[in-house]
């Protein structure tokens, strides 16, 4: 018998394929490498941050700080490159240390104070946004030869589509996320934590270390996403990516992960991100629909997945009850 936990993933993939077919039927040109390249490039920052969010959600937590951390990262990079002579790679390394430590600190607070992740990361969201504004209130352009090189790094696919560096970084992040979540001891601890803190303890999971690790990972991914976003826009802007944390959560849920934790796939998140990107592209191609339809469709998909999850939960409890009788 098929594993009922795989059903949401199958649903995600099915929806993506149906969306592809609808797009192709209406705009045959959408089946071009240009659109594929755009889809990967335009959603690179979202895909990366969503991988971090997937791990957090698998553990039954939430991280609301990531959107602000991306904006902070952009401003941090832009201001440091403008005001110091540091090489961009050094700046990137510094930034990743800062955001990882920031995530780890939030994880520590969540564990030590036994506070809901929602509240702690909400505070983190305001802190990071405030820190971005402290650095600058303007949008700061980045003029660095190495940085420009990163922006222009792409592989020209047949059909003039561009497989950009940041698109590749996103795909690699997904692969790394898949390995970490599904193939490591840390990953198993994350899933165990998502099943319930008490049971995880009984299973011998080091809850504190895992919690700190989870939010540190999310902080790292948000920092990486911030680097990619800075490369994408070539500037740092403290007002950027407002609400991106919610978009990332939506991508994770559309990707088939269960919001209460314990079940889901990093690969599903990638499909969730691409589905959302595809909806946006469709609406731009059409050109007459209000772009707010993107939000309406995403809202509808979210609702559908939540209902699907509830249904599956009922199904499995019924099966358990049946087994006991």
């Amino acid at each position, binding site marked *: 018998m098929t594993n009922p936990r795989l059903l949401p993933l199958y649903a995600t993939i099915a929806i993506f394929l149906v969306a592809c077919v609808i797009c192709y039927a209406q705009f045959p040109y959408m089946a071009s490498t240009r*659109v594929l390249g755009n889809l990967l490039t335009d959603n690179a920052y979202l895909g990366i941050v969503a991988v971090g969010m997937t791990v957090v959600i698998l553990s039954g937590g939430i991280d609301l700080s990531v959107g602000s951390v991306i904006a902070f990262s952009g401003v941090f990079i832009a201001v440091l490159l403008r005001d110091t002579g540091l090489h961009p790679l050094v700046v990137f390394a510094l930034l990743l240390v800062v955001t990882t430590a920031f995530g780890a600190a939030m994880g520590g607070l969540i564990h030590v104070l036994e506070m809901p992740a929602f509240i702690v990361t909400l505070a983190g969201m305001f802190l990071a946004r405030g820190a971005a504004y402290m650095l600058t209130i303007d949008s700061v352009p980045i003029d660095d030869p190495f940085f420009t090189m990163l922006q222009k790094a792409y592989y020209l696919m047949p059909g003039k589509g561009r497989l950009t560096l940041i698109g590749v970084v996103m795909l690699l992040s997904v692969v790394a996320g898949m390995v970490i979540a599904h193939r490591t001891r840390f990953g198993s601890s994350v899933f165990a934590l998502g099943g319930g803190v008490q049971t995880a303890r009984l299973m011998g999971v080091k809850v504190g270390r895992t919690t700190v690790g989870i939010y540190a990972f999310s902080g790292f991914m948000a920092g990486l996403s911030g680097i990619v976003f800075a490369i994408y826009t*070539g500037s740092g802007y403290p007002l950027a990516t407002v609400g991106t944390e919610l978009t990332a959560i939506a991508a994770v849920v559309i990707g088939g992960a269960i919001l209460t934790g314990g079940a889901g796939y990093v690969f599903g998140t990638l499909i969730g991100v691409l589905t959302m990107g595809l909806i946006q592209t469709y609406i731009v191609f059409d050109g007459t629909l209000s772009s707010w339809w993107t939000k309406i469709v995403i809202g509808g998909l979210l609702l559908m997945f939540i209902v699907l999850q509830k249904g599956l939960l009922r199904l499995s409890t019924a099966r358990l009850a049946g087994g006991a009788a």
Partner: protein
Amino acid sequence: MTIRTLLSAAAALALTAGMAQAQVVGFSQIGSESGWRAAETTLTKQQAAERGIDLRFSDAQQRQENQIAAIRSFIAQGVDAILLAPVVATGWDSVLEEAKEADIPVVLLDRQVDSSDDLYLTAVGSDLVHEGQVAGEWLVSAANGEDCRVVELQGTTGSSPAIDRKTGFEQGIAGHDNIQLVRSQTGDFTRAQGKEVMESFLQAENGGKDICALYAHNDDMAVGAIQAIKEAGLQPGEDILVVSIDAVPDIFQAMAAGEANATVELTPNMAGPAFDALAAYWKDGSVPAKFIQTESKLYTPSDDPQAEYERRKDLGY
């Protein structure tokens, strides 16, 4: 059989010929944060329809990443031109370069970017300093040589429209010593603040008897100030002259009621000049100047304010 094939071939040819004529233009708009912005969107759609241009509209909901993604999609679609009203000045280099490589001309509307100017065809916008100057010059002629003490309602402190409209106004009244700028404070571009600050001006200036004219950086503040002047028992438009900038529908209503004297238009029709420039470019490749300045037209009660109000009220202001 052959006739049928011929016919269908002819039909297909006619169809492609017809399609080739309709130019496709993508428009990436910032959002709909203000009435002026909504009017710009409405007018762009109207202008495109009048010229038979197939407009693809994308609202970025104030987010640059949405604008970049929309422009990339326009490029992938192979549109004939792109209109862009950029939400911020920075960060457009790589996407504008992509458009250039695909030979798609980009026209900036209303706001500028800090990219090199060979990456876009032209920018259509208003000269904010010039707007202030037109308002100042109107007041010089309205005062007609008599002494006039002016109070000023500034826009949001530090914002470029506030700085430029102040500079322009001062340039407009320069050399006319009969006109004196006595008080100047910010009303934050809002109606409520405009009313509040005007009230304090009136108290400070002998109940308003010493004020001869009000200059407001936008119409909304002027409308608020008109209310304050009326509440102080004075007649706006007669006891105190009112001149402001933007030309939104409400100021024409005030003008029709004789309560406002002049407004300088910040036209939301940025697309008209943009489409004209594009038409010339498509026709013979003629490249326009890098900045196309829209007209800063002065409206006074002699311009039939009621009709102007009717003309604007459905644009989405």
